[in-house]
């Protein structure tokens, strides 16, 4: 598919897909808790409502940083689906997240500050595994281009079991699910008020939500890469993994950031690094 068309499709369709998945996420969570849950389009209503609010802020610059965050997440996702270089995508994601962190720092608010620091710790915990996953996919595909990886005829996961497991582990960080929802959480019962998003309101907050949805779609796309061009297997894998994540989210409480970081690094080393090291000597 032409890269520009793929990128454009991503920009338009990813919110639709993301909102549906997020909505289903909330319904499933509710059912697991013995409740009925909101309508499936609830995330869409949330975002639209946020745009209807008149914004308040501690400093206007907050909105600027979040705008940049959103733009970069969208750009990175478009790059991903256009089939670009996977390492470049990963580093562009880091840039996007740094904008979010800066937006949280600007307000000099205690809750946002702790949220920002934890956001950085999450970044530090997650980055090794993502890079190792990219390297693993390179070793299987012989190319760093996502376009080539998506067309792989076999099942890369068979050669990358450890990498896949490590990736699922850090996926919990990326999706902001318990036990690793350190920086900000969708559950109000967690402490830190709202962490890094405490001082955002109105359309700024809507942008954060939107960026999260775009990122969700890219992460699911990443899972796709482990299954090559087997469409049915990919979709099934994504479904199973999302259900698992929701289950884990409901069963666990947040861990201390020290445990989150060291466990992520440990899993990265044992599962991820071990896997790619084995691949390199074979």
């Amino acid at each position: 598919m032409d890269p520009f068309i793929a990128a454009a499709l991503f920009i338009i369709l990813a919110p639709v897909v993301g909102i549906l998945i997020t909505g289903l996420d909330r319904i499933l969570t509710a059912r697991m808790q013995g409740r009925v849950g909101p309508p499936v389009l609830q995330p869409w209503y949330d975002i639209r409502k946020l745009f209807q609010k008149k914004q308040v802020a501690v400093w206007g610059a907050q909105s600027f940083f979040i705008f940049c965050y959103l733009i970069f997440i969208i750009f990175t996702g478009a790059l991903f689906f256009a089939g670009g270089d996977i390492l470049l995508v990963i580093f562009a994601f880091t840039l996007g997240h740094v904008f979010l962190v800066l937006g949280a720092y600007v307000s000099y608010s205690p809750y946002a500050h702790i949220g920002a620091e934890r956001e950085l710790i999450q970044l530090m915990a997650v980055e090794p595994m993502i890079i190792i996953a990219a390297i693993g996919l390179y070793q299987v595909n012989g190319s760093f281009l996502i376009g080539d990886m998506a067309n792989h005829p076999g099942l890369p996961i068979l050669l990358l079991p450890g990498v896949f497991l490590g990736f699922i582990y850090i996926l919990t960080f990326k999706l902001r699910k318990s036990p690793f929802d350190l920086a900000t959480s969708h559950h109000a019962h967690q402490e830190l008020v709202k962490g890094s998003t405490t001082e955002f309101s109105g359309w700024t907050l809507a942008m954060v939500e939107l960026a999260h949805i775009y990122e969700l779609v890219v992460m699911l796309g990443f899972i796709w890469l482990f299954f090559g061009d087997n469409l049915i297997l990919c979709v099934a894998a994504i479904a199973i993994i999302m259900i698992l994540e929701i289950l884990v989210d409901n069963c666990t409480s947040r861990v201390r950031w020290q445990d989150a970081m060291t466990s992520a690094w440990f899993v990265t080393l044992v599962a991820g690094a071990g896997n790619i090291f084995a691949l390199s000597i074979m």
Partner: protein
Amino acid sequence: MSYLQKSPWIIHYDASSCNGCDIEVLACLTPLYDVERFGILNTGNPKHADIFVITGGVNEINKEVVLNIYEQMPHPKVVVAVGICACSGGVFRECYNISGGVATVIPVDVYVPGCAARPESIIDGIVQALGILEQKRSAMKAGAEGVA
């Protein structure tokens, strides 16, 4: 159709309440009444909230807090006073340290009496608040257009 009515987020504050009404408010959030069906979420943060659910009679220290939280909420916003203490001070109305209800501090849109107010009344009150929220939004939009 306003999205505010489909996704009202509440912030709940206890202004010198005995906690009876607060327990009932929290009961609404449990699976038994499950207000998330209506898209209602309890955020702990005024900047994210649309509806200010407040209980208790408001004393001297709480006054500042209530004002502060109310100020930090973005427009359009509504206030729901839950329980008779929040409406008028309840049995504590004559006490030296009680203001006599939330309306003495901030403008209230919906009064939900009761001691403690029942979850069904609270939900009913919030649904009425949604209507008022929609009115305020239209007024805000019209006001903005009129000015512009």
